């Protein structure tokens, strides 16, 4: 399933990196930060225990972190680092789910989006996403998750001459870091 996810995600234009553990994932975030020549970064609270080490490492390599949580603040960032609720092998998508606007905006406003995903959160198909949304629907006891998006590659358009162009409103690049050995605690 991991291999299938990587293939599909690559097909839809995401760049998939694999990390043996969370330390390697943190280092990868810093490497991506440097490679895309970003300056300011928003590190989303949905990264849970990875938020602190990622923030620290990014500061060490010279990033300025966006502190506020208003849309204008998040829009200042060139790069957004977030987690994801699920990853879908069928489509190479990640599911960004939750009612807090900051993680969501961090996947939408910056030009580069880095998602850190545990390999164990990969599910086979869109029906599994349906199952997740059903379990977490408002009034069903779980979540509730009122807002969720399958994110499949970068923001794109082919409105002009059916030619693909990315970064039209959201990210021009989507990087997915798959952590193989330990869970991203939520």
């Amino acid at each position, binding site marked *: 399933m991991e291999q299938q996810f990587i293939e*599909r995600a690559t*097909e*839809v234009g995401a760049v998939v990196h694999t990390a043996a553990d969370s330390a390697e994932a943190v280092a990868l975030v810093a490497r991506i930060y440097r490679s895309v020549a970003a300056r300011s970064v928003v590190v989303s609270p949905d990264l849970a225990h990875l938020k602190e080490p990622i923030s620290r490492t990014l500061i060490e390599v010279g990033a300025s972190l966006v502190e506020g949580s208003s*849309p*204008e603040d998040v*829009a200042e960032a060139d790069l957004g680092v977030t987690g994801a609720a699920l990853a879908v092998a069928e*489509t*190479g*998508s990640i599911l960004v789910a939750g*009612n807090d*606007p900051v993680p*969501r*905006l961090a996947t*939408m406003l910056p030009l580069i989006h880095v998602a850190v995903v545990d390999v164990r959160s990969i599910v086979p*198909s*869109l*029906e599994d*996403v*349906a*199952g997740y*949304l*059903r379990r977490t*629907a*408002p*009034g*069903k006891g779980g979540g*509730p*998750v*009122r*807002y*969720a*998006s*399958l*994110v*499949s*590659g*970068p*923001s*794109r*358009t*082919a*409105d*002009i*001459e*059916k*030619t693909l*162009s*990315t*970064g*039209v*409103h*959201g*990210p021009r690049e989507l990087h997915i870091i798959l952590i193989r050995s330990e869970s991203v605690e939520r």
Partner: protein
Amino acid sequence: MSLSFRRIATLAVVGLLAALGWRVAVRRKAASHQGRALTTFRGLYGQALANPQLRANLAYYQKTWRRQRDASLQAYQVRSGRDFETLRHELAGIKDAVLADLPAYFRQFKDAAVRAGAVVVEVTSPEEVHRYIIDLARRRGVSLVVKSKSMVSEEIHLNRALEESGLRVVETDLGEYVVQLDHDRPSHMISPIAHKNRYQVAETLSRVSGSKVSGDDISELTGIARRQLRPAFLEAQMGISGANVLIAETGTAMLVTNEGNGRLISSLPRIHVIVAGYEKLLPTLDDAMKQVRLLTRGGTGQHITSYTTFITGPDRPDRELHIILLDNGRWKMRADPDFSEALRCIRCGACANVCPPYQIVGGHVFGHVYAGAIGLVLTPAHHGLENAVGPQSLCLSCNACATVCPVEIPLPRQILDVRRDAVESQGLPWYKGAALELWSHPRLFDLATRVGARLQVPAAEGHFLRHLPIPDQVSWRTPPALASRPARDRLVGRRPAPARHGPLADSDAKGLRVAYFIQCVTDRFFPEMAEATVRVIEACGAGVIVPSGQHCCGLPAYDAGDRPRALSMAKQTVRLLGRVEADYIVTGAASCVAMMVHDYPHLFRGDPEWLERARKVSDRVIDLTSFLDRVARLPEGALDSGPFAPVTYHHFCQSHNVLGLRTEPQRLISRVMGLELREMEGASTCCGFGGSFSIDHPRVSRHIVEQTLANIAATEAPVVVTDNPGCILHLRGSADATGRPLRVLHVAELVDERLRQWGRTVA
């Protein structure tokens, strides 16, 4: 005597042509008259035809779409083992179940959405939507609205209403943004600026951004749009979108976008308003996923779009979500057995992407607000029959749309029902009314064609009429000459003479009794094709009878929207063929087979007795290719008679799309007859004949056939084969007029030539 006859004949021919020329002149004058009001159908039509850039843009668009869409469906089939037919049949079934029980699914959706904190309202008219949103905006102090692409908002002309109330409205989908800046209209449901190229877009974006961009680099254009639109997302107090699906079990709205603007307008402004038609309801989240698979593949050829968003109530306590469900003709449509299936539509736009006339004239002409085949069907329901009258005339009935629709909407049949309604309300054009009046009277028709055959003598030269003062508009196709002896004179009353010897005499058709149905064009223009067909059937060991009194299946009238005449002609044929004693009724005209097998059930649906009589006839009706393939079951190599020119095959569109003949012709040509078959591009794309279409829309027809001829020429095969006399008339005439030395043969003629070649070789 003969001199005076010649004089009368010449006068008659000149008179006929004068009438034709007068008609063209009148139409030209009417067109120039309306030129001032460019929003009329005629005005837009003329504009589109004068725009070669439009045709080029759309040809590229359709070709790219086809490649990407086929590849994505193929890849899914390889992975899942489920093909397009299975997927679409399943989704159509789900949609039908919802439509059957719509009030209940709506209540379920509403209860869940309201529990999640949304406001759900039902409205009847576009004006009610306008009022609701304008009131809400006033009460909440909204001044700026950002919109995500929504066909329903186009349907109800929402922007205009909101702007008139003083609101600032910004379209945020790139294509819709360009359309808004240009004061233009979207021409495609998925790809609003399919009619523009990069340089046209660059001009617009240069104007609005104040910095000159060339357009060479498309990513530079999207960069400008990003910078221009970002402030609007952040400042707007209200976002408006449609919904791709409303999920009943959870009260969730699903929104599919690629650009991400849908997420921005539903996350940033404090108020999100969704406007959607009732037909967007689906029972469960799983059903929504099934739709996603087909919507994205059918829409853009993607496995999935970049963002598929699920919204269940407002995400935070300080935010509002309003969901407006719109009727605007939908409930009436649901109750109408002729059109209810159109409510299955998921707005993917696939029907436009395979439509030959759409490729020539674009969505502003081929449709109204909704473009493409589905647009022709939805327009009467949402915008009035009067706005569908012009656009519906552009349908060729090629049925390509039906092969790609992800919810199996019978679009070609529904378009003909719209045509029927248009004819009932506006009448037929005079020249069609006159022709059909004649055609619907077998004896008069027979007499007229015989008189015509004599009158045309001065102009006839072989199979064509030449040296005639033909108006420019139709000069691209040399008109065919009527045969001096129609096929019926040569064949009716003959005795069956099945072959006892020969290469095919032992086929599985051996001993069968076959009735041959000639078809009008074959009978009057191509009698030698009829004779070849009979020889071919008998070569297979079957005996052929040719029933006397046979006339027309009714297709020309059905196709023209003239139901009363279609019924009377169909009844005449059913009555006649019903009496015929034969195992099969074979015709070389696949269009008649499509009519008798696929259209008769709809034509006779209100009349159980005739429905049954028609069924008994159509059960025995079969086209020649299917007869050779399925009945005679000619084995491989059976007619490999030695060297022959390479041939290419042009599928008659309805053979391919309605009768489902996909590989049979190829098998017959390359396997059974051992010929070199050179595949042409667009082999199953309509040649632009479409019966009276080529007379109603000669300029559109010309552009289409030019592509067909160019594709044939590219194969460098000197022979093109097809299986319908209409295509043959069209291709022979236009190849002749453009000086192409192309042989256009019916399948029967090709098989017949191979039989003679076999005879010579053996002898």
